């Protein structure tokens, strides 16, 4: 191939395939830039940047909808965008919709609570959209560089968001801890990435999987003590450190309660829902990317992958007598490319999957148990919800473990397990967004975030207290609410997976649900049964906040009773995950 054809292919690929499918992210970028430019002619003095941000999110959501509407997510063809940097499949589409929709509702929330006011709003929305952009990249990452970039793009603005209230000691402490721990975890993860990329000679996830498959890992495992294996395990564990930090999984959870307590409740909602969802998506991408052979991409990209040995640039080398290593390497990489050589069975990757399942299962079990136990003694509602977030991350990681466990033998069941995760995340939005929204609204009227100060709330603010109680019950996972359906889906995936590890996980999850009953209901009891303090005046969160709260909380009940629609979307979203 000459350089001319290379450039032509690249141009047509970028212009005709990648950019149109990347439109939602481009709109977010445009919104960020427009918000910045609008500030220069003091445009923002008569137009609130809130509307710009909201419009940007809405337009991005519109363009994130696939051609056939939301119901047609399953019809999306799997493709690789930007020469393999991003994977575009139904899961990408789903998470993009999810994240952008969340950003939309979140912008309204911060406006209602007054966190992002007219003067600072522009900065807040910029950071929020920037983080959302990073999360979209995390959810579609297909290359180790995009994995790292996505994490950085999502994290760095989040550090600032955690410390968005300047001059408040706890906020600045939360931001500092978050930034320092986050940067450290990212550094360790990068080191792992460098080892993995180095030993496989590639950074493209599907290519790495084929390389790993070609390494004949089962034999290496049998040989016991192979150094290649040791490097792989080290790399895997280091990458897991970065992921675990984003997932707030034990033992890299310690930032979570502190940051949640120090940051405003609205930002907690963002961190606990959007950040977690993106991290889950990334975990699925990495686990499936390394543990399975990627399904074939749609024809438009494959057509571009013309076998090429010598590029114009290498010609002098190719013409000289000594065969250059790089040209040979290029040819070799070509034949090993998944598009041409699909017969490599994913059985060769069984050891990788076993490793991932083992790590995930241990992490999930500890995370879940620790989160629930630590939530007990908390007196601050945000801290309690932080530990609850950790515990829920544990349940969700279980779903991923089950999916990877099933990926080799029963792809359909593995897809169902991921669908359970997706459903759980959907349920989680309603529960956690509304929980933190209530906390924020109550903070504005009560001036407190202590559980003790919520006593007897049912008498002064019946609607709020009822809604909050409902959300807590849903978080436990008690029937008519959506939390139950989500938890049931994950338990079902664990049962379907079978095997001693999965059954053990199931047992742990069951026990944990029972434990969680106590601390959630403790808050509910405080609100509904305990007498209110004598000196409390009227508690009113206002009309608009009440409406907002109901809009985000009521679906928790509705979809608990009729979960069909979300289940359907979840099933569609995971359709192209495996071959």
């Amino acid at each position: 191939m000459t350089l001319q054809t290379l450039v032509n292919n690249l141009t047509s690929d970028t212009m005709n395939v990648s950019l149109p499918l990347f439109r939602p992210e481009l709109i977010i970028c445009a919104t960020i830039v427009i918000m910045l430019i609008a500030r220069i002619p003091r445009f923002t003095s008569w137009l609130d940047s809130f509307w710009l941000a909201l419009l940007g999110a809405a337009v991005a959501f519109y363009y994130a909808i696939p051609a056939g509407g939301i119901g047609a997510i399953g019809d999306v063809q799997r493709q690789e965008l930007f020469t393999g940097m991003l994977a575009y499949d139904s899961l990408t589409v789903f998470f993009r919709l999810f994240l952008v929709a969340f950003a939309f509702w979140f912008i309204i929330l911060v406006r209602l609570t007054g966190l992002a006011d007219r003067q600072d709003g522009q900065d807040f929305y910029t950071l929020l959209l920037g983080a959302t952009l990073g999360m979209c990249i995390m959810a579609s990452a297909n290359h180790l560089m995009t994995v790292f970039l996505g994490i950085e793009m999502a994290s760095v603005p989040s550090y600032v968001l955690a410390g968005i209230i300047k001059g408040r000691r706890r906020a600045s402490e939360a931001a500092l801890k978050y930034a320092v721990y986050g940067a450290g975890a990212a550094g360790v993860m990068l080191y792992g990435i460098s080892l993995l990329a180095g030993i496989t000679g590639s950074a493209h996830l599907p290519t790495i999987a084929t390389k790993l498959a070609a390494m004949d890992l089962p034999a290496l495992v049998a040989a016991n003590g192979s150094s290649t294996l040791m490097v792989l395990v080290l790399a895997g564990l280091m990458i897991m450190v970065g992921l675990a930090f984003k997932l707030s999984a034990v033992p890299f959870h310690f930032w979570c309660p502190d940051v949640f307590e120090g940051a405003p409740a609205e930002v907690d909602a963002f961190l606990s829902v959007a950040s977690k969802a993106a991290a889950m998506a990334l975990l699925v991408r990495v686990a499936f990317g390394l543990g399975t052979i990627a399904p074939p991409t749609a024809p438009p990209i494959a057509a571009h992958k013309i076998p090429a040995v010598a590029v114009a640039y290498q010609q002098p080398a190719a013409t000289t007598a000594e065969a250059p290593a790089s040209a040979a390497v290029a040819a070799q990489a070509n034949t090993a490319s998944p598009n041409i050589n699909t017969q490599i069975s994913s059985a060769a990757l069984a050891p990788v999957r076993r490793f991932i399942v083992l790590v995930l299962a241990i992490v999930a079990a500890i995370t879940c148990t620790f989160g629930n136990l630590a939530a007990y003694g908390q007196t601050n509602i945000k801290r309690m919800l932080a530990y609850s977030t950790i515990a829920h991350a544990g349940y969700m990681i279980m779903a991923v473990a089950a999916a990877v466990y099933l990926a080799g033998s029963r792809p359909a069941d593995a897809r169902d397990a991921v669908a359970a995760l997706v459903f759980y995340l959907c349920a989680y939005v309603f529960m956690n967004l509304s929980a933190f929204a209530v906390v924020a609204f109550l903070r504005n009227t009560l001036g407190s975030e202590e559980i003790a100060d919520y006593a007897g709330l049912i008498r002064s603010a019946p609607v709020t207290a009822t809604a909050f109680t409902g959300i807590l019950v849903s978080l436990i996972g008690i029937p008519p609410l959506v939390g139950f359906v989500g938890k049931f889906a994950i338990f079902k995936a664990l049962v379907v997976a079978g095997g001693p590890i999965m059954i053990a996980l199931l047992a742990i999850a069951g026990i944990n649900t029972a434990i969680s009953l106590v601390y959630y209901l403790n808050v509910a009891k405080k609100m509904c049964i305990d007498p209110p303090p004598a000196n409390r005046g009227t508690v009113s969160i206002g009309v608009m906040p009440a409406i907002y709260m109901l809009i985000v909380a009521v679906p928790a009940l509705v979809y608990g009773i009729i979960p069909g629609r979300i289940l359907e979307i979840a099933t569609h979203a995971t359709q192209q995950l495996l071959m």
Partner: protein
Amino acid sequence: MADFFISIQIWPWLAYLAAALIQITLIVTLVAAGSLLFIWLERKVSGRIQDRLGPTRVGGKFGWLQTLADGLKLLTKEDLMPEGADEFLFKIAPYVSFCASLSAFMAIPFAGGEHPFVALHLNVAVFFILAVLGLEVFGVILAGYSSASKWSLFGAMREAAQVVSYEVPLGMCAVVPVLLAGSMDLVVIGDRQAGSFLNWYIFHDPFTFVIFWVYFTCATASVNRAPFDLAEAESELVAGFHTEYSGLRWSFFFMAEYGSMLAVSLLASILFLGGWHGPIPVASFLGLTFDHGFWYGVAGNVLGTANIIVKGIIGVTVMMWVRWTFPRLRIDQVITTCLKYCVPIAAVMFLGATFWQYKWPNGITGGQSARTYSVREQWSAPAVPAAAKPAEKAVKIEPQPLTTAMGIARTE
């Protein structure tokens, strides 16, 4: 040069060592002699601007030995160190500055052609020089911090803020000639401007003309010269970062300053002013090129070296002229100049130059068509089958990894 030594049959390592020593000697001499000259020049220039004569007594009519006398005085001065200073950092700071400024000369070519006069022929010389010159700030910061004096600390803080800010527009300006030449190799950039002065990049198009002045402003700021010399603002901070220094250490800061002035001036003349090519191509009229033979080329290069050094001295003189003419800016004005003027202007001019190069790749005079060397053209060469394509074609961008450039690899 190492090749020459190898060709006369001595050990390769000795050959490289000898080549390196010769180059080091030349560069150090240039910088040291240069600063002697420049200090004298500065006094003369300032004297003339202030309507007085400047030094006249020491060393005959022009007082040209004055600096040497001052140097001797500095050598005999007591080496003071404030109590409470961080001894290690205090002592090492002047050397950091001096080394950074001197290292930049490693990669500056003094003449081009097939056998360029350059100690270290780097593929990415432009950015190497900017990067290394940027390190000079560490000396200043360390000096300011370790002196245990608030004046020094203020000076150092100002310096840090200023240098970090000005590196941005400076880089943007340096990118334009890189874009026009299609290479980051200074030898290539210089040789693209061969011929008459119409081929100099400053006259390539209106945008490059503007950006040269932006470059000169930013370069002045990045070497801490007035009106941007906030780090040593003597009317406010006593003497800024070097308040507590005396004797030889102090003179190292001075040499570093003059060394980096010369370095940015030389860089400016290579990037924009034709480098070693004079306004009229005298050398090629006389046949002093490598086409006619090795020694002819060397003679031409010596001429070129004289040429570029004259350009560099002119640049330094202009900086002195500016220093004694303009009042010093305030720190906020310095930062405003950078962020609100230099950066936007540089960005717009960069876009303009890009557009111009796209539209009229032969330059404003059309005289560059024979020498135009655009990456675009080279990369989009017509599709020729791999085997049929001549080997030289693609290697045109001189590959020069440091291993060979440092003269340490590949024992041929």
